[in-house]
């Protein structure tokens, strides 16, 4: 059984990757590509949050703040200081990661409801700063005209990032690297330390795991990813305003992580893509969309608290039991 899954998982991932590579060749529909790009950016956000929530067991509603910090950092670096995108991208990650440590120090001593409310307050503070620091952020008007990354050319091959399919490949590349790194991280000594903290904080401490260090590490990685996602978002959409980084956005990211099935890698990816597509398709429902979203969320949480991965596991075990009898 073990060897079987060990063999099939990389193969399945490989096939999925090839499929993802081929999508721009299969469809010329810009709208699908757009949704996939946005979905890819959400995958980065959700994989980050998954490190905090799924592996370390801490619920943060602060993710939109770091996403926003990354977006603003990148936009301002490129537009005000004329830094190239390729430098602004990692710097946005570093700045968001550092901000994560800033919140992490006070917040990570808290648990449960206290931690949730503290991170919620952080989102509000960051949102208010974006709204009111008008000399830097232009306040509620936002910053329009954020340029696409500068392209390059190899002879006849021109790479132009204002094209949707080129941007799609950029996002796909970054998402794939992050998924791989994530895979290795959670199977490493560090990953096991995080899971130990999730399962039993006090026992983890007793066997010599430095709680503060590992919690901050998971926070830093998660916020770094959120910063990268913010940078990718702002140079794709070309506009940034405080309205994109509210508590509601944080909630969306948490919902994606949980509905997919946290504490796994495939779960949050499914959650991010699933919810992005669901919300896009529900656009036709106009005013009913969010009413339905709220109702569905409530019902799913009550019925399937472990998300899609939990549901699949449940079905699989059900089938096994039937075969046994």
């Amino acid at each position: 059984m073990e060897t079987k899954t060990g063999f099939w998982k990389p193969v399945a991932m490989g096939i999925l990757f090839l499929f993802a590579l081929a999508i721009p060749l299969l469809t010329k529909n810009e709208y699908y590509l757009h949704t996939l790009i946005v979905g890819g950016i959400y995958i980065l956000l959700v994989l980050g949050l998954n490190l905090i929530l799924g592996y370390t067991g801490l619920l943060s509603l602060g993710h939109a703040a770091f996403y926003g910090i990354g977006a603003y950092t990148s936009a301002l670096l490129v537009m005000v200081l004329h830094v190239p995108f390729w430098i602004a991208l990692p710097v946005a990650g570093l700045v968001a990661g550092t901000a994560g440590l800033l919140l992490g120090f006070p917040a990570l001593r808290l648990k449960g409801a206290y931690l949730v409310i503290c991170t919620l307050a952080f989102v509000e503070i960051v949102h208010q700063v974006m709204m009111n620091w008008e000399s830097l952020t232009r306040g509620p008007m936002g910053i329009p005209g954020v340029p696409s990354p500068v392209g390059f050319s190899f002879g006849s091959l021109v790479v132009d990032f204002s094209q949707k399919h080129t941007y799609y490949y950029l996002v796909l590349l970054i998402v794939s690297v992050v998924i791989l790194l994530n895979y290795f991280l959670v199977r490493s000594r560090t990953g096991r330390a995080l899971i130990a903290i999730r399962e039993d904080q006090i026992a983890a401490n007793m066997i010599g795991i430095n709680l503060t260090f590992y919690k901050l590490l998971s926070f830093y990685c998660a916020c770094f990813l959120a910063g990268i996602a913010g940078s990718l978002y702002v140079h794709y959409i070309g506009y940034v305003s405080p309205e994109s980084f509210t508590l509601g956005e944080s909630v969306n990211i948490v919902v994606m992580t949980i509905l997919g099935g946290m504490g796994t890698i495939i779960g949050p990816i499914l959650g991010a893509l699933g919810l992005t597509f669901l919300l896009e398709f529900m656009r036709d429902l106009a005013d009913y969309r969010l009413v339905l979203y709220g109702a569905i969320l409530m019902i799913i949480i009550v019925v399937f608290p472990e998300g899609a991965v939990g549901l699949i596991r449940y079905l699989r075990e059900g089938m096994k039991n039937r075969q046994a009898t």
Partner: protein
Amino acid sequence: MMLISQLINGMVLGSVYALLSLGLTMIFGILGIVNFAQGELYMLGAYVGYFLIVVQKVPFLLALLISMLVMGVFGLLIERFPFRPIQGKADESMILATVGLSVFLMNGAILLFGADPRRVETPFSDVFVHLGTFSISMQRILVFTVTVVLIILLTFFIRKTRMGKAMRACQQDLNAARIVGIDTKRVSMVTCFIGSALAAAAGVLIAPLFLVTPVMGLKVIAKAFVIVILGGLGNVAGAIMGGFIIGIAENLTAGFISSDLKDIIPFTILILILLLRPEGIFGKQIPEKV
């Protein structure tokens, strides 16, 4: 002079915060649920008040009572779903379920009532009481008075009645309360009734001062959380004090520093409190259970 009028405005705003936070802290204390939909209960309460006062021409205080009753019954409904099935589940499940409820109710309100703000006029809005050189509208005095009366009634209920005693027992230890024969389901229902009636009272009281909109709950819920933490989660007296502290702090900031900073102050206070005294200003030190 400015100081006194800002203090009075702070007390008025604080009254509304206190009522809203009371429900939040009671529901947390007894059901263990952080209710993100508390702001929507306040919003719906305000809409019920609007229809009674503006459309049906019901007198203000009677409208306040009816709205509290209606929303109290609504509280019983949400106690059945989604509160009861998620009680005792993981933190994130409880939070997401109430977030779902909040999204559902807020967008339902947009659908039913439209996004346009509604104005509520009462006979008290135009009556001013003059005290020395400044004047204050009757409506503001009314907000404060009603809040004080409600708080006294609630305190009496919790301290003196059998149900109040049962509620305190449930807050200390739900299982032990069950063992000594307290009907914990009934206690949960009463808590949700009171919690949502208080939120409705806050909504009706504030309606004549500000506008009634479907997103009014979203705007205050984060502050209500700050207040609840400030007072200590589950601490009734703390929530009342916290409400007034935040209301006054906000108005003093707007009056003396900058109105841009007004909305940031409560959250900054929160982060400081969590750093220095995570159990809240009025909370007792809670030993961590192993």
